[in-house]
């Protein structure tokens, strides 16, 4: 599989066990890390690379579990609820709650069409006749909640 879209070469080369693994962009990962740390903190490049790999592994880990469940239930499509369920099963129950809320909000907004690309005129103005231009009254999207109280990660076993 010569699939090297977005894979970061360096640490994936350990004898070929992990093929070129797909990774999330280091800039995005680094930014999320930076935002959670104190302002004077520095992050080594290797630490960011390690984090990239950990995130990919996390996605695979959860997805495998979710996909097994779908297989058992003879469903072909892995959906958001399956992902939330898998998180809960694999020990990430602190995430499951906030994620379910996030998912429900998404479903409310998007209804059946998870792809309302209206704004930003990024050229793609769709053929959707009803571009619901709902005012984004949700100024507070969960995305921007820094480190919040609702999901406090108390380092329990430290």
């Amino acid at each position, binding site marked *: 599989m010569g699939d090297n879209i*977005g894979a970061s070469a360096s*640490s994936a080369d*350990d*004898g070929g066990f*992990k093929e070129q693994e*797909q*990774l*999330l962009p280091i800039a*995005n990962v680094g*930014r*999320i890390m930076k935002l*959670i*740390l104190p302002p004077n*903190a*520095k*992050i080594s490049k*290797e*630490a960011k*690379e390690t*984090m990239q790999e*950990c*995130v990919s*592994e*996390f*996605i*695979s*880990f*959860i*997805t*495998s579990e979710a*996909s097994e469940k*779908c*297989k058992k239930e003879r469903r*072909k*499509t*892995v959906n958001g609820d399956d992902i939330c369920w898998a*998180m809960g099963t694999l020990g*990430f129950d602190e995430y499951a709650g*906030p994620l379910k809320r*996030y*998912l429900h909000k*998404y*479903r409310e*907004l998007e209804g059946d069409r*998870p*792809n*309302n*690309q209206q*704004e*930003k005129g*990024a050229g793609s103005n*769709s053929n959707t006749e009803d571009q619901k231009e709902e005012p*984004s009254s*949700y100024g507070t*999207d*969960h*995305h921007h909640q820094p480190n919040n109280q609702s999901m406090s*990660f108390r*380092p329990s*076993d430290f």
Partner: protein
Amino acid sequence: MRQAGAYSGLVSASMSGRMGPHSLPLARIKKIMKKSGDDVKMISGEAPIVFSKACELFIQELTKRSWMVTMQGKRRTLHKEDVASAVIATDIFDFLVNLVSDESSNDNLAETPSEEMETFRS
């Protein structure tokens, strides 16, 4: 996929501003999901979106825990060893143990990959 460019629209234009920009590219998340196993056939549009949030939470948690190790060492730069320590110290990150120790022992080329690794290979 209902419309062409659904994901590219989401990626570039951050989902109509309602859910706010996603910090992580959805198409890439979807690729990683697909590679996690042969059983993964179809993925609903919302799954990568849930993951974009979940990955954010994950990165935040692992980073915070790693930083605590950094601070214990009275340092200000977070190194990959700190991440490794945080992984080892946290039960729910057990699935990462081989990943972080593989990195620190690159000379073990003959090492058999763990089961978890094998499952994730497509």
